[in-house]
């Protein structure tokens, strides 16, 4: 009897009943193992079911491995399948015991019934145990030659599984060549497809290192293979067709005749019930006709109908993915879709993300003929329950107006929005009216008349307020009360929280001053002095700049601040056309759904959060790389001393220079103030100096006092080696999981993981591993309760962009974990404030 090796691996504490259940199952299995009594199979079936259901729930039933294997001698297929499932799940963790299964699996590989042969072969290959590879070769060789196509399909995939376990064994047995031969000769389409699938994966992985593999890949993409496969495409299953079509899309036809032949052959695939096949076909069509402009155009016409059907008829999941693809096509060739605009009308039940896509498409396809209809539809969304969509649709109306179609009617519509008296509608509309005026100054009279009626008090959103202020400044000659509105805004300077609005206010007052100096003079003085006293650097600088300009020469100032403007002809696009082309090249891939080219979410430097994936698995699974991470953490700690010096140096250097720059800046206002009074009679000297004090004092907020909860004292020098940490981390369950916010200063100081590590060390919390790149860092900390052996283990993921930290705490002593959690949080929130 093999000792239950994994008995030490207790099931997770969250399933306290697990352990007794498992031992109970073991006992019963053992009793049944040798039984040949009638009904034994039924009893086994029930037991196996229970084992599998435990496995599904998450209870570790690996201790029953040897018993399961003993019970596996049966002729009942369902029993066999359950047994294979179990073995496949646990063999990797129990390589020694897995050897026990080899015997019966190999026996089954010679069974009369091809189903059993196939099943056994599949399970054998799914064991994925390194030292059992030798037992795989013979059954695979036999499987590839089996007279049942079912077994051959399984064997073809089995080769790939073998390759992933041991690439050398796979090559030594010359399996790739065998697969290739099979692919080109087998009568069964599924076998051919599976061979192709395996070969593609094997050779693509090797193409980088071996010339031979690169050559083999070339042959796969070569004319003979492609033609051979294309001619059989109708025999293939729909999934195999997708695979093949993907292959074909990389093939470069020699001439136009070939292109037309291919398209004729594949045209009926556009009518396939499976959306994946349709999209794969579309990709082929788009790619092969890339160089033939007129045919490419025709392809668009041809694929339009299938895509629109897919969007409308499929389940919501399918229709979203298709819609994303349609979106990119619409963006590339809006004219071709201009008559199908009704398909992009939003339905009430559409989720928001679908509505958003549809709005973008409606915006893109608007032209002379359909603008009226589209804008009417969009206007109906403005009263939508879904506020974000209502906003989007107003923006869409604005964008269409900027495309120069039927501007007259649209301006009327926009102005009607302003009369709806809904805060968010007014806000969005104001921003749009501003953009419209930049492009079509000729509409200013109509717009100004309506905008003038809007009370600036009713608008809260910074963007909208800034837009209104911009219009007040730009058209102050046409708006009777512009100077007075601006003046009242300046009076409420302190209550204006958004720097953007304050910046706009400064500029608007300046512009107004040039046009209506007597009325604005007072407001300008107040604005400049408030600006100079502003705590926001940009606002301060701009106020100072304006002030000096005015001082130098008012005429020059006018030329700088309010030059005659040309109407904007085209607004800058957010996504460059290069990126759009790139996404288009990756048609029928995830890039389309994300609306980003793949390098943006797959390449290392672009994917911050993905780093952790590897980190996590290292630590969770263990192994050499995990040790690396820990070693590097120790290296970090050694570096800490240097770091300490360098940061403190910086502080010392930084301090005086900052003070210096401050004083140089602030020497100016004292003499400005006196001269400013020429322009602005009210003296601002008092406020200005007050502001300086304030500003100097502002950088140093009161340092929060570090408070330790008295209930928990931590050992200041705990010792825990990485191996034990990993073990404990694997065993314990999360006792506390929280999200904490970092202070602004904390985020600022977290340019490298070391700074936080040092800070936590001061709080008796030690770091064992850390890593990551901005904006994401990941730390593993531990701490020990003073005078006790219980440890606290912490996983802490910090995102500096959102200033948030995800904390997971595991503890030997669950009762103290809450106290520790609050201690950890307070330590974390103090970070950077010292």
């Amino acid at each position, binding site marked *: 009897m093999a000792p239950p090796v994994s008995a030490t691996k207790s099931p997770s504490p969250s399933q306290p009943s697990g352990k007794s259940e498992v031992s109970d199952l073991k006992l019963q299995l053992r009793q049944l193992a040798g039984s040949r009594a009638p009904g034994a199979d039924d009893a086994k079936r029930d037991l196996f079911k229970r084992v599998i259901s435990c496995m599904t729930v998450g209870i570790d039933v690996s201790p029953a491995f040897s018993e399961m294997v003993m019970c596996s001698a049966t002729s009942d297929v369902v029993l066999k399948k359950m047994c294979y499932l179990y073995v496949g799940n646990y063999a990797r963790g129990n390589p020694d015991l897995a050897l026990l299964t080899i015997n019966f699996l190999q026996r089954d590989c010679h069974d009369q019934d091809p189903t059993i042969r196939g099943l056994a072969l599949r399970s054998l290959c799914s064991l994925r145990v390194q030292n059992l590879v030798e037992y795989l070769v013979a059954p695979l060789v036999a499987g590839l030659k089996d007279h049942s196509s079912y077994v051959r399909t399984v064997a073809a995939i089995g080769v790939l599984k073998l390759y992933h376990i041991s690439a050398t064994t796979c090559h030594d047995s010359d399996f790739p060549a065998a697969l290739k031969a099979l692919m080109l000769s087998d009568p069964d389409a599924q076998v051919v497809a599976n061979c192709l699938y395996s070969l593609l994966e094997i050779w693509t992985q090797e193409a980088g290192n071996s010339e031979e593999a690169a050559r083999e890949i070339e042959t796969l993409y070569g004319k003979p293979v492609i033609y051979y496969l294309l001619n059989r495409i109708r025999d293939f299953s729909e999934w195999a067709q997708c695979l093949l079509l993907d292959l074909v899309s990389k093939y470069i036809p020699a001439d136009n005749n070939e292109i037309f032949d291919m398209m004729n052959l594949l045209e009926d695939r556009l009518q396939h019930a499976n959306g994946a096949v349709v999209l794969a076909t579309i990709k082929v069509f788009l790619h092969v006709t890339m160089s033939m402009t007129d045919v490419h155009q025709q392809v668009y016409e041809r694929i339009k109908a299938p895509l629109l059907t897919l969007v409308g008829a499929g389940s919501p999941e399918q229709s979203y993915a298709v819609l994303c693809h349609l979106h990119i096509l619409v963006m590339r060739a809006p004219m071709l879709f201009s008559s199908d605009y009704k398909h992009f009308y939003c339905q009430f039940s559409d989720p928001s993300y679908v509505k958003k896509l549809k709005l973008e498409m409606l915006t893109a396809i608007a032209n002379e003929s359909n603008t009226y209809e589209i804008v009417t539809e969009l206007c109906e969304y403005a009263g939508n*329950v879904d506020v974000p969509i209502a906003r989007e649709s107003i923006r869409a109306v604005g964008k269409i107006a900027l495309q120069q179609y039927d501007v007259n009617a649209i301006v009327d519509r926009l102005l009607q929005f302003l009369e709806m008296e809904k805060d968010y509608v007014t806000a969005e509309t104001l921003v749009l009216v501003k953009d419209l005026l930049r492009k079509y100054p000729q509409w200013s009279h109509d717009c100004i008349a309506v905008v003038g009626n809007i009370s600036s008090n009713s608008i809260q959103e910074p963007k909208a307020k800034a837009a209104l202020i911009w219009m007040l400044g730009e058209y102050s000659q046409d708006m009777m009360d512009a100077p007075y509105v601006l003046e009242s805004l300046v009076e409420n300077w302190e209550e204006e929280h958004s720097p953007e609005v304050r910046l706009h206010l400064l500029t608007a007052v300046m512009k107004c001053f040039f046009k209506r100096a007597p009325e604005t003079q007072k407001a300008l003085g107040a604005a400049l002095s408030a600006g100079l006293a502003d705590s926001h650097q940009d606002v301060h600088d701009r106020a100072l700049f304006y002030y000096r300009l005015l001082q130098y020469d008012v005429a020059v100032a006018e030329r700088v601040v309010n030059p005659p403007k040309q109407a904007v002809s085209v607004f800058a696009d957010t996504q460059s056309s290069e990126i759009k082309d790139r996404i288009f090249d990756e048609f029928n891939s995830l890039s389309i759904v994300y609306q980003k080219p793949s390098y943006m979410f797959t390449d290392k430097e672009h994917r911050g959060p993905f780093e952790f994936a590897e980190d996590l698995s290292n630590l969770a699974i263990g192994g050499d790389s995990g040790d690396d991470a820990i070693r590097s953490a120790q290296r970090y700690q050694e570096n800490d001393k240097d770091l300490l010096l360098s940061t403190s140096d910086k502080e010392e250097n930084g301090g005086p220079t900052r003070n210096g720059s401050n004083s140089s800046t602030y020497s100016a206002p004292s003499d400005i103030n006196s001269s400013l009074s020429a322009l602005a009679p009210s003296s601002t000297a008092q406020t200005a100096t007050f502001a300086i004090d304030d500003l100097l004092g502002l950088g140093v907020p009161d340092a929060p006092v570090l408070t330790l909860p008295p209930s928990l004292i931590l050992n200041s020098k705990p010792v825990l080696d990485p191996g034990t940490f990993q073990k404990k981390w694997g065993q314990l369950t999360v006792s506390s999981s929280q999200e904490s916010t970092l202070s602004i200063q904390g985020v600022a100081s977290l340019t490298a993981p070391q700074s936080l590590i040092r800070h936590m060390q001061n709080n008796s919390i030690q770091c064992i591993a850390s890593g990551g790149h901005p904006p994401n860092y990941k730390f593993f900390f531990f701490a020990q309760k003073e005078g006790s052996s219980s440890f606290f283990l912490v996983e802490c993921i910090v995102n500096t962009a959102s200033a948030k930290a995800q904390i997971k705490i595991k503890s030997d002593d669950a009762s103290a974990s809450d106290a520790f959690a609050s201690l950890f949080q307070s330590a974390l929130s103090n970070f950077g404030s010292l």
Partner: protein
Amino acid sequence: MLQCIFLLSESGEVMVEKQMTGHRVDRSICAWFWDHLLSLSLSQPEGGHIAQISQVLTSPTHYLFQVYRHGIIFLACTQVELPPLMPIEFLSRLADILSDYLGALNEDIIKDNFVIVYQILDEMMDNGFPLTTEPNVLKEMVTPPNIVSKVFTAVTGKASPAVGPTLPEAAASCVPWRTTHPKNTTNEVYVNLVEHLHACVNREGNLRRCQVYGEIQVNSSLPGFPDLTLSFANPSLLDDVRFHPCVRFRPWESSQFLSFVPPDGQFKLMSYRVKGLKKIPIYLKPQLTSDSGNCRISALLGVKNDPGKTIDSIMVQFQLPPGITSADLTSNHGTVDILADKTCRWSIGQIPKDKLPCLSGNLVLEPGMERLHVAPTFQVKFKIMGVALSGLQIDKLEVKTAAANPYKGFRAQTQAGDYEFRS
């Protein structure tokens, strides 16, 4: 390819976990999925129901594809780039097959039959690559838990053989969707035309949009190797069509009829879209007038272009706009319920002969609100048996088969899809 498939219940329980490749996907990915869902429900006013979240998600470790059916979330994980529709189509197919196998689809059924689910998954996908997805073939590899096998078990005391003694012949036949020797054929074939009408009418009563999506469902139980030909009286109506793999493309291209060798049992022969429909069978006139904190609401429903058959199961449904403290709604026909999620449901059934159904009532707004800011959209559901509103008509169905004179049955039905009236 796909690395792992999870079946989750709505309460977050992992009901089935199937690892596909050597790379083990940790279960914690499900926790991430739920966290993501939760954070969405907090950030969105209308709540982050599963149906509201995007089908393709990027977790820190994997790409997740999810399909939601009947309270079950089918979640697939992968780390490699692949055509997005492939996993989505596959998961949808899996859901269809499971529901076909188990009679229905819900949490309890999956839990009771998880052994079957594992077996099916095992045959449907090998190493993350779809293998056998034809329901007919699968049924011969994994016996469905049907009444026959239950009776068999009860009578003989033995479990029926789960797998036929030999391999499904379809796996080797040149028509992969059909077994060469289907059992229990009754020599009959049913053709069912099902259409969904999508329409949108705006405040002024103008039809903004009207589309018909339809499908032809066939239930075939014919012996041997039957060759069927289905032709339409007016195929020019069809704007775009999609076919089951069994349909031969050339006859359709040249002369617009369907020629096919059907699989055994129920399948979707074709789905189609019809263009340019201008008539809708039912109209609704909603009126909302609000002043000084009250909103009077009335909605009148009537038949517009009589389809000639009874309109059944009529129901009107709308979401009460935010900011309403109480609602008092009555109707002269049918029942009005206000559900917990502030959905008002007016079940009408059939339109009575003597009067038009009318809903009326009063909504009381929150103090401080003068008038209603957002107008609700009314969704109408109905069913019309015996007619396909698009006007598509089946001309004839010819069956070439070994046995003589099979029974042929035809049915048609129209349902409301997204059928909405804005107010």
